[in-house]
């Protein structure tokens, strides 16, 4: 699904050069659920931004679903992002002035999808996250957990191959976090590849693979023993 080889990301200012990723290599296969952890400043968000085509890497090779994304134009990256990737953000990033229906509709409109198909996908996605009866509510009328479910519906509506989740439970209490995590596991169980950046080691252990980053490099990759987790 995703292959990064010897990636570097350097932020340069007039005075400072910051190496956010150093010789970073990672392969994520289709259907995997990978959790990425690491201390603040370890490069997790930079990795997520590059994986999600939100930023360009400085050096190295990045292949997404068989497509070499190096050197792509801004429009090409936008289009690829729209078609292959779904995003879940820590602070949900819903548009406060739009109701749930229109929020989920945002990425579908950018794909130029016909209205009828959009309607079907939006209703399906919101139903799937348990909010099918609240299509015309506004985000402010929902709890944090429900808002994150809307964000997940928005990410799912376009049937992405890769779901990138940036601290998806970071702003939620334990109960809501568990609900969101269970939803992500269910989505992954249906074949969608998920990469989740998190500080929460317990959540990370629930993923199929746990990648730990320090100073812009992968320092440890651990496979998870699902049998023990699921039993727990």
């Amino acid at each position, binding site marked *: 699904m995703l292959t990064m080889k010897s990636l570097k990301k350097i932020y340069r200012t007039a005075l400072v050069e910051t190496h956010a990723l150093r010789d970073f290599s990672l392969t994520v296969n289709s259907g995997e659920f990978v959790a990425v952890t690491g201390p603040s400043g370890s490069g997790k968000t930079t990795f997520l931004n590059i994986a999600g085509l*939100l930023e360009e890497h400085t050096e190295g090779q990045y292949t997404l679903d068989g497509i070499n994304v190096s050197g792509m134009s801004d429009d090409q990256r936008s289009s690829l992002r729209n078609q292959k990737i779904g995003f879940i953000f820590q602070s949900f990033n819903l548009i406060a*002035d739009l109701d749930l229906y229109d929020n989920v509709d945002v990425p579908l409109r950018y794909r130029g999808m016909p209205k009828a198909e959009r309607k079907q996908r939006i209703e399906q996605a919101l139903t799937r996250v348990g909010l099918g009866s609240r299509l015309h509510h506004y985000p402010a009328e929902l709890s944090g957990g429900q808002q994150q479910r809307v964000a997940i519906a928005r990410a799912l509506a376009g049937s992405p191959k890769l779901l990138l989740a940036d601290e998806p439970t970071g702003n939620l209490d334990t109960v809501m976090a568990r609900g969101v995590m269970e939803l992500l596991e269910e989505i992954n169980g249906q074949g969608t590849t998920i990469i989740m950046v998190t500080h929460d080691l317990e959540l990370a252990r629930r993923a199929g693979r746990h990648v730990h980053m320090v100073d812009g490099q992968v320092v440890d990759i651990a496979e998870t023993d699902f049998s023990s987790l699921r039993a727990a």
Partner: protein
Amino acid sequence: MEISPILKSLRKNPVAALLIAAQVALTLAILANVLFIVSDRIATMSMPSGIDEPNVFTFASQDIGEGRNPIDGTLADLDAVRAIPGVIAAATQIGIPMGQSGWQTGVTLKAEEKVEGPERLAALYMVDERMLDVYGMQLLEGRTFNAEEVIAWKTGDQPKPPVVILNKALSQKLFPDGSALGRMINITGDPGEPAQQVVGVVDTIASPWPRSQNPDRVVFVPFRPSGSTNFIVRTEPGELDRVMAAIEEALFKVDRNRIVDGIRDFKTTRARAFEGDRAMAVLLAAIALALLAVTAFGIVGQVSFWVTQRTKQIGTRRALGARRSDILRYFQLENALIVLLGIAVGCTLAMAINGALVKYLSFGALPLSWLPIGALVVLVLGQLAVLGPALRATRIAPAIATRTA
């Protein structure tokens, strides 16, 4: 097209959008009326005089003392002017187009008829047998005056000639159903039997007062003003400046006891006649431009604020697949919708303002065709104003979406 979500979003936070729409409405209402008034002024300033403008000039000669017979003196003066090389024709005159001074008289067709209101008023021009050559006019019907019909006229004489010539506009006004030739009219302005016979009709010629209610109606009488009076001279093409420079010397050769002044080409006469119109047009155009600038800066300010306020949202949209062009289009479309609302209100307001101008200040009625022109101006202005902030929005990086702040 994202019209539906944009409208929903605007409905959720309507105040700023409504303020912009109100500003646009007011701008359009004022702009449409201002453009109409300015265009009306420009049309007035461009009205035809009916004379050979590039080659005509006028001046005044004031006799000093009691030295000479005014009638003979004037004839000698005219001979001297006509003798200057390059002069086609010269005459003494009372009343030239756009000259802003002259005579006006009432014209009636029946003995018992009274002149009431401006309907029957016309400018009265005193001319001699050379009138066509002097003004460079076209005779449409009949004839001009004979030399024998032209009478020397001095201040105080009543203009009651046996024959008159009308211009086309007055002829059509008095005799809409047929020719004016041979018809009798009364130009004294007092009730009485019509005693002036129309012997000719000339083409368009303007009155001395272009902003009067009947700026196109003129009656010519065969009088030659004499003594201290005004002159009109028509020259060969390209000879105007030279003849103007030579006029004083030629007249001083006839008699030095005089003052020659007001030597003025027709371009200057026209400019003086429309000084007020030009000033008003410039002032109104400046007000319109200032208004447009205020509206444009208002839009720039509001959209800049929105771009800053929506930075995270724009980054999120980019992360979800919006191209830069999608962001640009979003802001342009949003602005177009707000401006269109302003236009809808502005059109109604423009007609209301015009109604007041017509009622209280005697302005002309605003033609409906001015509204789409004004609407187009504010729509384009809105799109230009939104362009800067919208382009700034397109440069917001999608990675903003993953920042928690």
